[in-house]
């Protein structure tokens, strides 16, 4: 499936948002997700199916003042 993740095109064999996050080896507790501009709570990742062409944002805390 083709997805636009953090502005870049990716081809991933996934069905859920949870699989998207784990396919990058990210620690789940530290990542926040948005699909097409809507925040998806971590508790709903496993039940959220991704579809062709969706825009997904994966963000986290970084150092800052």
């Amino acid at each position, binding site marked *: 499936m083709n997805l636009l*993740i*953090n*502005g*870049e095109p*990716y081809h991933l064999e996934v069905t859920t948002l949870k699989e998207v996050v784990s396919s*990058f*080896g*990210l*620690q789940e*507790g*530290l*990542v*926040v997700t*948005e699909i097409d501009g809507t*925040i998806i*709570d*971590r508790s709903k990742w496993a039940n959220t199916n991704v579809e062709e062409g969706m825009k997904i*944002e*994966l*963000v*986290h*805390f*970084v*150092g*800052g*003042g």
Partner: protein
Amino acid sequence: MGDKLTIAGIQLSSRLFLGTGRYPNPYIQNQAIEASEAEVLTFAIRRVNLNEPGEDAILQHIEGKSFRYLPNTSGATTAEEAIRIARLAKASGLSDWIKVEISNNEKTLMPDPIETLKATEVLANEGFIVLPYTSDDPGLCYKLQEAGAAAVMPGGSPIGTGLGILNPYNIEMITEQLTVPVIVDAGLGNASDVTKAMELGAEGVLLNTAIAKARNPVKMAEAVKYAIYAGRLSYLAGRIPKKKYATASSPIL
């Protein structure tokens, strides 16, 4: 000191809010955090770098006691962008505190007053604990308080400049007029700047570059801790009035 800073009903163990950017490495950062005794740490929210997912996940490196997280909305140029970042930060489940930081001037990073006020109002109504970074305008700071800010954070001077407090008169007016805590954020360069902020009635300070980029960040963190104590005590003790001519402190024969 028994005199503690309380924000939104939460009593904090330290009057220092410490930024987590620009340290030489995570080891020095952790040592500086420990030496500073800060409880509140600030962070930014950014896209994960999917090519190097682990490289900047700051929370992997923060060790020790439990901290209170104050994410910021840096990078936002409008209220709308700041509100989005704030909601993302809250969805982390780590904090409902947010430092509203909105600027559209890359050279000065000076906050946009109109957008900052808008975002503060919306986020406070949504239940966030909002701490806006603002310019040192007393009227604006008062309006931010009215809009629901839990604390107001005027800058002493532009972010990262180390120019100290450029307008002490304004900072003092702000601390006199507001009932919510005033945290002087941005521009402080060393321990004496911190003491000055506290003597002007600030309830706390937010530092990042002054510690992260000091020749010795850990020593500066410790110096700042004492500077806060000294400044707060001096403020509570009350300075003497300034006079033009001498008054002998030894008895006159």
